[in-house]
């Protein structure tokens, strides 16, 4: 099987029903997607497959053979943060960080389809992401900041 992850092509040898999450973390050592509940309920494993946010714990890798996968590693680097990363950094939108990769991927996808989302649209887009630290207020502020930064650039 073949996967293009963050622009780089990989041959994948995991068994076909292995969840994409396990392939990313354990075979390709791409560790930003987190193994939280592993039943689709926490959002920590969220990645983009062909541009759409999905739960990588629920996707058998064979079902996405040939797809383009984007993880947080593909958005920016520590030296050049992507706009969503910069906004979360500046607004303290991350505390322990476990949910952050999933939240950032969902936010990135939201801003791709809706560059200036309303508060309701932000809440709907992040509804499936559990955060046990921030109380969500700073996450919502970070998304709004990312939207404003994006429109200014």
């Amino acid at each position, binding site marked *: 099987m073949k996967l293009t992850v963050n622009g780089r092509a990989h041959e994948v040898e995991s068994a076909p029903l*292995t969840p994409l999450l396990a392939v990313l973390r354990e075979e390709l050592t791409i560790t930003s997607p987190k193994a939280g509940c592993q039943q689709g309920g926490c959002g920590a494993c969220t990645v983009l497959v062909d541009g759409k946010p999905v739960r990588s714990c629920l996707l*058998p890798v064979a079902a996405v053979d040939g797809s383009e996968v984007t993880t947080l590693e593909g958005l920016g680097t520590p030296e050049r943060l992507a706009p969503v990363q910069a906004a979360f950094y500046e607004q303290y939108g991350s505390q322990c960080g476990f949910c952050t990769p999933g939240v950032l991927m969902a936010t990135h996808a939201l801003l791709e389809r809706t560059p200036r989302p309303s508060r309701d649209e932000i809440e709907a887009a992040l509804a499936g992401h559990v955060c046990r630290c921030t109380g969500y207020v700073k996450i919502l502020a970070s998304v709004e900041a990312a939207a404003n930064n994006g429109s200014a650039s």
Partner: protein
Amino acid sequence: MAGMTDVLLPETPEEAVSAYGDGAGVTVVAGGTIVMPEINAGRLRPTKTILLARAGLAGVSREEGKVTIGATSPLEALVDLAAPVGPCAANVGDIEIRTQATLGGNLCAGEGLGAPRGDLQGALLAVGAHVRSAGAGGETTEPLEDFLAHRRDRLVLDVSYDDPEAGAFVSLDRPHTHEYTVLAVSAARLADDSVRLAATGAGSWGVRLPSAEAAADDPESAGAAALRDVSPHDDALASAWYRSQVLPVLVRRALTQLQENG
């Protein structure tokens, strides 16, 4: 993790039907949202798995007022359909789950983890949908009511219905998107002016509410009548008693909304 299993990836509907055969011993994975947690946790160890990701069974079309939804259409592709189907689809999970979860999986779900699943069963019962499916005895097209009784032994191909004249969907609010819907009622007024009502969460799977339909002109008494059509149950989300208290309210609201929607 996966163990020894045959994994088939059909590339056409015909290949999918052939791979499914009579369905014996087959695990079907479309979006994965129902099956993969079972596999991840080791509760399900499939021996023969069909992945429908590329089987050509996705797509929503509308022709002369008839809506046809392919089995592997993601629920997110349904959210803009007219009530009750669109609002019902929008009430499932969250955007990532709706992007993955499929119509076929939703129709075949039920009786899992102690909570009602298969939200769209109610909405599609209300609009009088028919299901085209394959399995033992070949391809059949039948009303959803009939299909639900043997859904575990069929491979859904598509679902079709005539757009209703008016529709309504009401649900108990979910405390979080991760919760399954505790109870929801769908209503539709069809072209012949008949009113159909169905509930999700009032039994193991979606049920029509014929007694309430018969009293549809009076939302208050229809609500009370609906209790004759269901056998509410206790589960992790709510007690049977609570469901019995709420169902008449949701039926009343659905019918009121239906009147307002024309």
